[in-house]
């Protein structure tokens, strides 16, 4: 028999896996069963990683993201800076998409992390963290919304994790995505909707201050469509903000 003894080998006899009938979950996520301006069900739970100063786990449809904040800690081996520094590291789990992701050569994640940094900076009061660095680690466990949706979900999760770590912030930051397809605005689009969309836009806002933190757009929209997109994302962001606020309140009271 020819096998590699350094690997963990499976048993000789195997059986096909039997999956539980998951039509119910699918049902909730498909556009045919939700309105154009309706989010997929969102689940958010802070404080999952005990060693971190703050952490969040978020699920939005089939997208699953874990997010951990470490610090503030003293910057070593770097020139003096009078404000704090935010480091964002995003990783896709190898099994996060239908095609295996090579953990060594990851290129999209660096782009995504710079977008997330942009979205988070307006919410943080880094001027109060002289010489400090704040590390944010994001693991994408399952990806069901592509980069635009991921930016929105990561921003929401990261904002909650930063708040739960007790850092000084201007406000909670929340992201929402719309896809524009044949005169329809689709909130929180699925991967196939993004693929066939004329334009996609993610808007990250601080709903408590009615302030926009970051916009990432691909494709063209005229001014009316742009207005409409901002309105849809604003009302969605408010809903998510309410959810986060409730979750954080419960966590604090417990």
């Amino acid at each position, binding site marked *: 028999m020819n096998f590699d003894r350094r690997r963990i080998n499976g048993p000789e006899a195997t059986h096909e896996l039997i999956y539980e009938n998951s039509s119910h979950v699918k049902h909730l996520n498909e556009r045919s069963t939700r309105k154009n301006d309706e989010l997929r069900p969102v689940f958010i739970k802070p404080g999952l990683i005990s060693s971190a100063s703050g952490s969040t786990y978020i699920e939005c449809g089939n997208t699953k993201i874990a997010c951990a904040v470490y610090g503030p800690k*003293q*910057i070593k081996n770097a020139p003096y800076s009078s404000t704090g520094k935010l480091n964002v590291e995003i990783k896709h789990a190898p099994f996060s998409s239908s095609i295996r992701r090579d953990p060594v050569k990851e290129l999209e994640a660096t782009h995504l992390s710079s977008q997330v940094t942009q979205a988070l900076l307006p919410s943080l009061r880094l001027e109060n963290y002289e010489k400090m660095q704040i590390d944010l680690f994001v693991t994408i466990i399952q990806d069901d919304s592509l980069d635009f949706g991921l930016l929105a979900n990561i921003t929401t999760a990261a904002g909650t994790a930063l708040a739960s770590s007790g850092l*000084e*912030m201007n406000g909670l930051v929340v992201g929402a995505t719309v896809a524009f397809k044949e005169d329809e605005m689709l909130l929180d689009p699925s991967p196939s909707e993004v693929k066939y969309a004329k334009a996609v836009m993610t808007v990250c806002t*601080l709903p408590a201050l009615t302030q926009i933190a970051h916009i990432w757009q691909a494709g063209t929209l005229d001014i009316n469509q742009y207005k409409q997109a901002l309105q849809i994302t604003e009302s969605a962001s408010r809903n998510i903000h309410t959810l986060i606020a409730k979750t954080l309140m419960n966590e604090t009271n417990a």
Partner: protein
Amino acid sequence: MIVLPGQPVSDNSDKIKHRESVYERSDKLISSTIGKLSKSEDSIRVESAHKNAQPLPEIDSEVLATVVRLNSKQATLQLDVIDGVPCTNNSQDSSFQAILRSQDVRQTDKDRVKMYNCVRPGDIVRASVISLGDAKNYYLSTAKNELGVVFATSEYGNPMIPISWESMKDIQTDTIEQRKCAKPTPL
């Protein structure tokens, strides 16, 4: 009442002199962290709800620090307690590092300070932060009666007790070593 970041806590900001974890935005005071809100006539505080929120060293913070290295000009220390709250990040790479320069050890006779006769590696020192310092270090001072070494072991490894402001005695062998001792503060 528990407030969240971004939540307005007061409409008129002029009267309020003492503020903690709040910031001002178009004449309103807004909470900047999750915590319990406490209000009075001229003060607004948001007490952070995070149980092990890491306090950061500020000027005039009182700290307890362990001496790590020593040379004739300065001692290098690692901060253990900041304003009565223990530091949570005590691993080598993420702890707060500070230095105590020879001119900051005591108030008088500054130019004749011999670092080796004031602190030694392993001693625990009570000090105050005088500057946020450079990129690497915070700057500490022990130039006050109640600041200085609070715990030290002799060269034989036994704990010592202070017998004057500049000497300590081994409780087992009665040998005397020199330290800049902290005046014991009544509990």
